[in-house]
């Protein structure tokens, strides 16, 4: 069987090298992924390569014949094998297992005659570890040094002669893309074949402790560091752009301030950029869409009835109002995607983690909490990454305090209605409040119920900064907007129908028939009125504000739609008048707060951010931490929300 077959089975003929293509001499290319190894393989083999699976695996191995020119003008044909990328000879993946099996496990006469170790000159600190292991094997070895141009651009110069001296093997600088160094590599391999394998390298650190599990690796690291010190020259003033930025972006004090500034900018750009589109959509939904629906229903003879009430006051008012927030969500998601794609968000992770650790919270809980700023439900599921049951429980109780994206439109609406151009500041403040709640409640639980919990140290491997990829940003943004729209298409429609139905059913004692009862006398309005006194100390004891919070307990996405629905139903004679919701909200807050509108609005926002996110989150909590702790979470979050809201209003009314 020839190695150039479509599906080669290398081990079947490794035991008899005479069966191999060429003169029976096997040369294997070994190296990390992305070192240019396969490019070199293609260059050496021309168009005569084939790829097959390693026996019993799905790992692909390239094979070919390498025609090496000799000094007398003739050529020698060698069998060439492109082994899969391997970071070391200690396998942690099927790819590395194949390399390990052939170079370490196989009997000596089945191993390659020469191994060409392909090392990336710009990543020598990584690739020399593999060389240190290869030099422990009784193996003929040649080093092909690639990516020298990349190393030069990074201010690194690799002394190939010094590397050859220290490693005890030939080193040839090659650039397979430009075919440079290929002849030198062929010469080095031809000569290596004729020589005996060099003795394995000596230990650097002397005899290891007998029970030291790190002894072998430490010796390799020590050798690698020695080689780096002697072989690589660095232009000391060449500090990478990423390192320069990171000095500030991950600094203990400046880092958090920069992150806060970046988020402030995100919210300001979001609000300013979305405002014209929102206004246009609002006018379109409240005007032409509602008018068209009313005209259509009139033409069908259904005007003024239950169907018009449901379609115009319910679906169009509810879903339509929420849809006006789509541009806002899209802009914010796009800006966050840009931050993530550029690599900056990972730096934010570092500074946030440092802050969490400083107050004794488990660093690893950072991941679920970050997820929580998107949606609390998957964040609760993400607590499974935590190994400690107490950490999982603590994190599950903190996740509801992270301000999920569903709360954003409500805060933006309130910000726009009550603070106009300063709406961006209000949104930014909401996120700061959310972070403060996570830290504050976390600290409180740590010093009470979770005493003795040790924080878990965590390191973040930061990618270099790069320009955001428009396609990735676009896909990210669209996926999140689509998710938002799906919610609008499912939860909100269900809630709108439920609110509409409850608003049509008279409360006990009401005289009006079903469908003709005023909202405040309906089952919906009566329930909200029964609860609303609870919020009087917080300044928003109005039943309509309470009804929004009731609906928000089910799903925050539905708050705006139900609000719009309630106000539209309250003024059925003019459901399509833009601006009604704003004016009604202002009037209601002013009335319920006794004139301290600003204090009441801040109290309402505080409650909105802090109380239970939605029933789906409760379901996830029940699944992960049990019913008892789920109920405790409702108590902690709602209790905290109420106490803080009352505090905000009572202090606020003194100063406003």
């Amino acid at each position, binding site marked *: 069987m020839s190695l150039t077959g479509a599906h080669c089975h290398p081990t079947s003929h490794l035991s008899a090298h005479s069966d191999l293509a060429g003169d029976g001499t096997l040369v294997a290319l070994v190296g990390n992924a992305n070192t240019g190894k396969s490019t070199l393989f293609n260059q050496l083999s021309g168009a005569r390569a084939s790829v097959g699976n390693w026996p019993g695996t799905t790992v692909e191995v390239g094979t070919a014949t390498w025609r090496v020119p000799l000094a007398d003008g003739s050529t020698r044909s060698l069998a060439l094998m492109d082994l899969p990328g391997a970071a070391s000879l200690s396998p942690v993946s099927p790819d590395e297992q194949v390399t390990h099996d052939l170079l370490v496990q196989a009997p000596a006469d089945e191993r390659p005659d020469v191994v060409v170790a392909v090392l990336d000159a710009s990543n020598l*600190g990584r690739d020399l570890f593999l060389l240190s292991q290869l030099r422990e094997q009784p193996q003929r070895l040649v080093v092909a040094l690639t990516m020298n141009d990349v190393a030069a651009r990074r201010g690194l110069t690799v002394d190939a002669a010094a590397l050859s001296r220290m490693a005890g093997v030939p080193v040839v600088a090659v650039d397979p893309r430009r075919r440079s160094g290929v002849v030198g590599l062929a010469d080095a391999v031809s000569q290596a074949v004729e020589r005996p394998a060099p003795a394995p390298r000596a230990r650097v650190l002397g005899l290891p402790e007998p029970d030291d599990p790190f002894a072998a690796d430490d010796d390799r690291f020590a050798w690698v*560091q020695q080689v780096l010190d002697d072989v690589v020259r660095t232009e000391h003033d060449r500090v990478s752009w990423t390192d320069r930025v990171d000095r500030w972006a991950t600094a203990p004090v400046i880092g958090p301030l920069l992150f806060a500034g970046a988020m402030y900018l995100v919210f300001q750009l979001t609000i300013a950029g979305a405002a014209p589109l929102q206004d246009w959509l609002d006018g379109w939904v409240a005007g032409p869409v509602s008018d068209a629906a009313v005209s259509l229903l009139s033409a069908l003879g259904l005007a003024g009835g239950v169907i018009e009430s449901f379609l115009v006051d319910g679906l169009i008012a509810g879903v339509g109002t929420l849809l006006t927030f789509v541009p806002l969500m899209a802009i914010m998601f796009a800006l966050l995607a840009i931050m993530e794609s550029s690599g900056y968000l990972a730096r934010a992770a570092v500074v946030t983690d440092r802050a969490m650790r400083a107050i004794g919270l488990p660093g690893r809980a950072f991941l679920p909490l970050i997820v929580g700023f998107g949606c609390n439900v998957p964040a609760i599921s*993400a607590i499974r990454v935590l190994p400690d049951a107490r950490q999982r429980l603590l994190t599950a109780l903190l996740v509801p305090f992270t301000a999920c994206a569903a709360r954003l439109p409500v805060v933006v609406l309130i910000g726009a209605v009550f603070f106009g151009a300063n709406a961006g500041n209000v949104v930014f403040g909401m996120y700061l409040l959310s972070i403060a709640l996570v830290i504050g409640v976390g600290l409180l639980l740590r010093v009470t119920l979770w005493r003795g919990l040790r924080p878990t140290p965590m390191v*973040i491997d930061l990618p270099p900064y790069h320009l955001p990829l428009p396609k990735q940003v676009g896909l990210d943004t669209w996926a999140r907007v689509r998710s938002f729209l799906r*919610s609008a298409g499912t939860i909100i429609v269900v809630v709108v129908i439920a609110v509409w139905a409850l608003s049509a059913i008279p409360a006990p004692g009401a005289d009006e028939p079903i469908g003709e009862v005023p909202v405040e006398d309906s089952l919906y309005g009566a329930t909200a009125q029964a609860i609303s006194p609870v919020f009087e100390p917080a300044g928003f004891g109005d039943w309509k504000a309470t009804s929004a919070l009731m609906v928000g307990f089910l799903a925050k996405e539905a708050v705006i739609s139900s609000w719009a629905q309630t106000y539209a139903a309250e003024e059925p004679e003019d459901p399509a008048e833009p601006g009604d919701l704003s004016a009604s909200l202002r009037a209601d807050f002013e009335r319920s707060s006794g004139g301290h509108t600003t204090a009441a609005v801040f109290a309402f926002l505080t409650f909105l951010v802090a109380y239970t996110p939605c029933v789906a989150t409760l379901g996830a909590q029940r699944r992960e931490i049990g019913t008892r702790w789920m109920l405790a979470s409702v108590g902690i979050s709602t209790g905290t929300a109420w106490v803080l809201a009352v505090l905000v209003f009572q202090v606020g009314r003194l100063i406003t």
Partner: protein
Amino acid sequence: MSRTVTAAPRGGPLSPTRAVLAEIENGAATLSEIAVRTGLDPQLVDTAIARLIAAGYLDSQALRLGCPPSGCHSCPSAGPTGCAATPSGGRPAPDGPVMVTLTARPRPQ
């Protein structure tokens, strides 16, 4: 590059592997920070961490703003094959940040 190799396993300066582990325990937040504190080459630190992950002393997880990689299948946005809230079923970007944490495996002195 001029760095000091300190590799005595016991009774002297920490060996490279122990130095990396020690700095993680001491609160180093990034690989660069570990490299600066240990005096080791940053790429060598990267390799040491990969070796410690393979040996079970450290754990790694891709970090992403959004849903967990497999999706949770429990929110209204979850599709049948994963999480609709993130592209590609929530798979992290291949060049994105990675979170590395200590595992419960006892560490040799």
